[in-house]
């Protein structure tokens, strides 16, 4: 059965969401009115609190924590004082834990810096393609977080807490806005590399929100969704009949368990999976993209290919109304030695590879979104769990730095070609603590651009009103257009 006839078959079938419609559409199915109402689609689209500037978010998590001192944050004083000790004044108020103690300031001999675009933003030689997009970017150079280890800080980056149990940002957005496309999940996770992102599914979990709002991971490779195609031994009619029976049994079960959100999520996922059989392959199928587009994303290159594929898929998902696409950087296909940005040693080799992996694809994404008129309604966020210290570790690496680093955003509602905040002269800490932007502030700002007031995006959990930004979070108004 081809896709069109399959689509028609599904359209004419009795499977679909909506309590009352469902009850009347499936003969013999006896659902009470109360449970029928509760089965109404939890992902139905909902209005934001005020006019949104954007419709979708592409969250580019740079896994492993890149050194923004080697990418965006040019520090002439650091260069001048290379191989010297760190003055005590720069370490005031922070607790370091570098193996071997705070070492001498490290500067790579291979690093060079230039200013680009009308904004004059600084980029190192590691990001030649992204540098050409300088005027599209809004830098936040006073980012801070808490973090001694990746897993904990990645969790905080995505959920706002150091402990598992809170919903991820994408789950909150799915909860608040619903889905703009009933045939695709509103929240998708993409990644490249041999294995799932470190710290795993807690980072796209729905936490205490109903399970239906969790992220759906699309795996790398040709077939991102397991068991998408019907087995050849089964006919479409056999599959339809099985699914209808399964649906009937599930709904009978749901009637007895009206408060079971896990069951509702499972019902919803079956229904969504049914529709995704048609919608998902088309969404991630890059064969219809031109060679020029694939080249733009670096899909023709061994180092950039897998990450570029993730980003091109992200663009296609934006076009199809997916609200939040969490792209976690992995490693080029076949690479086993360097699997993330975590350069505690040999930073030059690590960042040389990782920067090359992401530079062209991200630049391509921005250019492609712009040329298709999508950049104004999309938010692209470069983010990481923390960054890296100006002092060296293990000779040629850098340790973790949560006290001051750079992230950026690009897209609708922002002051493009703008920089907010700064770190001190050596890049240790935020220079002015009043400009510090924590993960909660980043979340509050993303939600604001989606038309959501983070203070009013609430859910009652065990009698307590919870919000995405925990008890913190301020919109960074200075970067808004």
């Amino acid at each position, binding site marked *: 059965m081809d896709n069109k006839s399959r689509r028609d078959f599904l359209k004419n079938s009795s499977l679909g969401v909506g309590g009352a419609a469902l009850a009347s559409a499936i003969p013999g199915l006896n659902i009470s009115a109360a449970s029928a109402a509760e089965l109404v689609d939890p992902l139905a689209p909902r209005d934001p609190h005020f006019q949104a500037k954007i419709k979708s978010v592409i969250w580019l998590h740079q896994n492993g924590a890149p050194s923004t001192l080697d990418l965006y944050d040019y520090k002439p004083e650091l260069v001048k004082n290379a191989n010297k000790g760190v003055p005590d004044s720069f370490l005031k108020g922070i607790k370091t834990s570098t193996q071997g103690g705070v070492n001498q300031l490290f500067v790579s001999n291979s690093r060079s810096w230039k200013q680009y675009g009308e904004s004059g933003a600084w980029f190192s030689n590691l990001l030649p393609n992204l540098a050409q997009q300088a005027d599209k970017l809004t830098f936040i150079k006073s980012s801070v977080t808490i973090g001694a280890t990746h897993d904990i800080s990645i969790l905080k980056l995505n959920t706002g807490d150091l402990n598992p149990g809170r919903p991820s940002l994408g789950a909150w957005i799915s909860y608040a806005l619903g889905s703009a496309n009933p045939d695709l999940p509103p929240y998708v996770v993409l990644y490249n590399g041999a294995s799932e992102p470190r710290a795993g599914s807690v980072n796209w979990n729905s936490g205490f929100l109903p399970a239906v709002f969790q992220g759906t991971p699309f795996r790398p490779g040709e077939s991102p969704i397991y068991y998408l195609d019907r087995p050849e031994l089964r006919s479409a009619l056999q599959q339809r009949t099985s699914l209808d029976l399964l649906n009937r049994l599930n709904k009978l079960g749901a009637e007895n368990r009206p408060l079971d959100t896990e069951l509702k999520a499972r019902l919803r996922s079956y229904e969504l999976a049914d529709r995704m059989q048609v919608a998902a392959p088309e969404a991630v199928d890059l064969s219809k993209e031109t060679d020029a587009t694939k080249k733009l994303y670096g899909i023709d290159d061994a180092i950039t290919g897998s990450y570029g594929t993730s980003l091109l898929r992200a663009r296609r998902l934006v076009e199809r109304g997916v609200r939040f696409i969490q792209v976690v950087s992995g490693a080029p296909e076949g690479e086993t030695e360097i699997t993330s940005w975590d350069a505690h040693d040999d930073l030059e080799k690590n960042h040389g590879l990782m920067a090359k992996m992401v530079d062209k694809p991200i630049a391509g994404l921005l250019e492609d979104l712009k040329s298709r008129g999508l950049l104004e309604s999309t938010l692209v966020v470069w983010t990481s769990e923390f960054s890296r210290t100006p002092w060296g570790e293990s000779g040629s690496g850098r340790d973790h730095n949560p006290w001051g680093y750079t992230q950026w955003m690009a897209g609708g509602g922002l002051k493009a070609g703008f920089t907010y905040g700064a770190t001190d002269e050596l890049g240790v800490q935020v220079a002015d603590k009043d400009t510090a932007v924590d993960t909660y502030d980043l979340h509050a700002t993303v939600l604001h651009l989606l038309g959501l007031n983070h203070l009013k995006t609430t859910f*009652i959990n065990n009698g307590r009103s919870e919000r995405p930004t925990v*008890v*913190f979070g301020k919109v960074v108004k200075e970067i808004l257009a």
Partner: protein
Amino acid sequence: MRKFVSAVRFTVLLLSINIFSISNLSAEEVEMDMDLMQTIESTNDNLSSNIALENAESAIADAQTLNELFAVVEEHYKKEAASGEDVAEAIDLTKKSVKFSSEIMIFLEQSDFESAANTATDLARTCKTCHNFYKED
């Protein structure tokens, strides 16, 4: 009624963090310890929730409790300063916290939940800033 509730709550909290006698309650006798800090954190979480739920009475009680607990913290750091410790910033931050909790109560009396929520966020951020410098591992 509200002040009574708040006073009772404060007394119960002090009892739970080991004071010597009910009849001689004073800020100086309360230890600045993890229990106190966790109590502040928990009360702050309650405050945020009650503001979001627009439960003014409970939120005011929470803010009042915080106001009193931050006064304890302020006294602690003033004593440390008197013995030569470099805690000027801690004193400033605690004074800020006392001020914020007072402002929250005023906003709540006026049913201005939005301003109360924003100020509660400022209060939480002040706690976090203080922790960055003074929280012991």
